[in-house]
């Protein structure tokens, strides 16, 4: 089993488009199987791109939620004093207080301070995770969260573990990483064989990718990069290349900005299905990444063969 993670640091950089195209191109090779772990829960678009048909879904519980039993509430206001996240509001009739679930950070400080025991914990369902079959072939695991719930290391682990269970020893798992550089991204990168860093050729894209490079290095992950949306600003393109050269991350290819590529953010379309010159250029880069992955797997399997021989 080989696991690769596609990460970008910034939302909208093209991570999901690249991850899904890569997964489809791997699955298109006879005898190969691929599983996608979509950990970009804030924008779970992998299911759309891959025209996913839900097989099964499971509730996801992150941690306990907190709620105020109106009948037990004396409106003393202790909870509001204790809440540092401005998540408690007076009810309409002013007779009690209520916790706004979308704002609640689920710390529990209100429960400790309530003198009437009106604050209680409950098993709050934070979202759901799904296993789906896709038209182009890969199995897809993804999740959707309720508003106000954040992707956490736990959720990424749940999605990755399920993908790992569904994949065979010979499969490739493509992780569509959570955005940013926090705990969910760490969980998206831990234990992976290759990190594919997507650098959007813009001010914010380059800055965020640079932070991601630092994280990948600190976790000692092998990494390569893809530049995306090039051709809009020669200055930005040059800055991106310089950043990668300075940090020693090999560049697998550059994908130019093209409205045709954005237009594939539709049901059942990935970059793999674009025809013509644009499609060929994009897939050349994707296939270059596929080549790196195959080389890694050959090394892995020859190492196993060597071990068996000895």
């Amino acid at each position, binding site marked *: 089993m080989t696991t690769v993670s596609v990460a970008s640091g910034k939302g909208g950089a093209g991570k999901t488009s690249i991850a899904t195209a890569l997964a489809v191109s791997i699955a298109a090779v006879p005898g190969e199987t691929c599983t996608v772990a979509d950990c970009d829960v804030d924008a779970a678009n992998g299911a759309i791109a891959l025209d996913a048909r839900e097989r099964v879904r499971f509730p996801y519980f992150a941690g306990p939620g907190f709620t105020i039993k109106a009948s037990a509430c004396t409106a003393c206001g202790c909870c509001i004093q204790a809440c540092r996240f401005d998540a408690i509001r007076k009810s309409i009739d002013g007779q009690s207080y209520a916790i706004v679930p979308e704002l609640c950070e689920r710390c529990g400080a209100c429960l400790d301070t309530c003198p009437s025991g009106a604050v209680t914990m409950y098993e709050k369902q934070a979202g759901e995770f799904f296993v789906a079959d896709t038209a182009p072939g890969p199995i897809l695991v993804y999740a959707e969260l309720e508003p106000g719930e954040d992707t956490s*290391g*736990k959720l990424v682990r749940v999605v990755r573990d399920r993908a790992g269970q569904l994949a065979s020893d010979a499969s490739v798992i493509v992780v569509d990483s959570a955005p940013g550089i926090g*705990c969910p991204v760490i969980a998206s990168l*831990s*234990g992976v064989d290759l990190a594919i860093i997507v650098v959007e050729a813009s001010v914010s894209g380059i800055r965020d990718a640079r932070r991601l490079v630092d*994280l990948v290095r600190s976790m000692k992950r092998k990494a390569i990069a893809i530049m995306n949306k090039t051709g809009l600003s020669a200055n930005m393109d040059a800055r991106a290349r310089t950043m990668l050269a300075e940090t020693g991350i090999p560049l697998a290819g550059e994908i130019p900005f093209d409205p045709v590529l954005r237009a594939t953010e539709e049901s059942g379309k990935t970059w793999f299905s674009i025809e013509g010159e644009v499609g060929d250029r994009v897939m050349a880069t994707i296939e270059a990444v596929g080549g790196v992955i195959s080389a890694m797997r050959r090394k892995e399997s020859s190492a196993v063969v060597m071990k068996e021989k000895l």
Partner: protein
Amino acid sequence: MKYALPTDDGKTVGKVFGRAKSFALYNDADASYVIAANEGLDAEHGAGTGAAAFLAGKGVSVLIAPEVGPKAATALSAAGIRIEITEVGKELGEAMADVIVPSK
């Protein structure tokens, strides 16, 4: 001295530390070893730091693992637990031997 290794299958070194299914705990004083389930596996946040606390509570001095996330690394260091790097999939015994009896 007590050593710990993350393991998902009970036989080989697992891929991750904080959310490993269990830990193999080896005590070189009596050459005993047990597999302890990772109680913090289900934690929403801080699985890595929780695992560090778990191992510290068991008196572990050395963690043998393929990688450790940055936050877990800080917690292990605070707990005075040394980290030795090993390869994923290695047999537990072999990974332990590499550290306890390092070849020159």
